[in-house]
């Protein structure tokens, strides 16, 4: 069977895979236009630098986007925004009541009743106790010399993480030294009502509290260096003591060493219980469940 190419002696022999040349003038014109367009496109592509190729641009854009997300997530651009909005405690503990020998205690060491408050700075019920009940307790019993309050760490909300917010806030409060109670009051006043372990008690936030209460910054910074390892160890040790003593919730109040049930006891319960101890003349235990608070090194 003959073909067009075999019947035309003037045309070159057809190579395998080569397209048939345009037969008509119109086809030749179209082919010429097509070739011109392809040549033009190749020229443009050849002139375009390698970095302008779509893949390179997409890669660069993706890397930049990833870096932007990382920068935003790391909070590099907005640490001041959360630090500059500290709320001052409405009813801070009177500084005059702080025991110089144990900055985590309020009131005289000779007071007949010792009220130990086992607490976690992230715990909402502890916040309620510290901001609404404790001020009344201080006014009615500590300021009058009838009772003494001792703060105890029971840091559990961050699930035991040394760098978690319960441990770091407790360590920072200890690192505040004689400013423990102001630090304590600021932490509870600025607790995040939205929840726990949300990054509220970040290192930057704790430093801002330290500045707000006027701690000795070099001593505080030295104490908080390396994840405040010494203070975290003390917090863990005290929490372990609380666990051994049978504490399983915060806050837990102990009156003269005896654990009370009911969590954040209201003054209507706490007041009569303290009065009963005062009336019975039951002495405060010489040694409570926890060792004295550590101070900044």
């Amino acid at each position, binding site marked *: 069977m003959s073909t067009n190419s075999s019947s035309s002696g003037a045309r070159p022999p057809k190579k395998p895979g080569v397209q048939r040349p345009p037969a008509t003038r119109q086809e030749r014109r179209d082919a010429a236009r097509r070739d011109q367009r392809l040549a033009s496109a190749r020229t443009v592509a050849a002139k375009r630098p390698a970095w302008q190729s779509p893949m390179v641009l997409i890669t660069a854009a*993706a890397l930049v986007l990833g870096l932007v*997300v990382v920068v935003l997530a790391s909070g590099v651009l907005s640490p001041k925004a959360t630090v500059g909005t500290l709320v001052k405690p409405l009813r801070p503990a009177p500084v005059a009541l702080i025991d110089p020998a144990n900055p985590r205690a309020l009131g005289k060491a000779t007071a007949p009743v010792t009220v130990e408050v086992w607490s976690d700075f992230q715990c909402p019920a502890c916040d309620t106790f510290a901001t609404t009940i404790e001020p009344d307790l201080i006014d009615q019993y500590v300021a009058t010399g009838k009772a003494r309050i001792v703060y105890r760490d029971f840091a559990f909300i961050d699930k035991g993480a040394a*760098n978690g917010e319960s441990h770091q806030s407790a360590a920072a409060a200890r690192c505040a030294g004689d400013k423990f109670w102001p630090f304590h009051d600021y932490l509870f006043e600025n607790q995040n009502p939205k929840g726990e372990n949300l990054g509220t008690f970040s290192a930057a936030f704790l430093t801002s509290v330290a500045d707000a209460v006027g701690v000795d910054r070099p001593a505080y910074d030295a104490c908080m260096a390396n994840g405040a390892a010494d203070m975290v160890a003390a917090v863990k040790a005290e929490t372990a003591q609380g666990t051994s003593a049978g504490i399983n919730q915060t806050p837990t109040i102990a009156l003269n060493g005896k654990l009370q049930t009911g969590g954040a006891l209201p003054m209507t319960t706490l007041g009569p219980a303290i009065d009963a101890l005062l009336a019975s003349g039951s002495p405060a235990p010489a040694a409570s469940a926890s060792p004295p608070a550590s101070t900044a090194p």
Partner: protein
Amino acid sequence: MARGRPALLLGGLAAAGLIISLYLGATELAGTTPVCLVGGGCETVAASQYSHWFGIPVAYFGVAFSSVLLALIATWWRTGDGRLLLAGYAQGLVGIVIELYLVYLELFVIGAICTWCVAYGATILLGWLALVVVQRRAGRPGEEG
């Protein structure tokens, strides 16, 4: 190029990432901590302040990320549209950058390794590498369709 096998590989990796992030998100929602299969850093990482971005658990971002990736791959498998692979390539690259940051946090800031988080990162990295290979093959003239 036949899309069945590559889609199965890519989809499998994205689905694995989705399952891991769903597990991490569920533990967050339940108020518990993930159980580490190896080591014990999961609790530490989950309790750290870096487990939340803008107040939202990082695991939730992982769920959204893997869901979108899985949807892209599924749509590509059905349509063969090469632009979807390109979108997956870009998304995977964003994910790798973020994962590198998270690994840095675990190693040098938190000081604990969460194997679930590392496994999730591995699905992102392997998925992206597989996607690059698939994309190069699919990009050959006459092979896509």
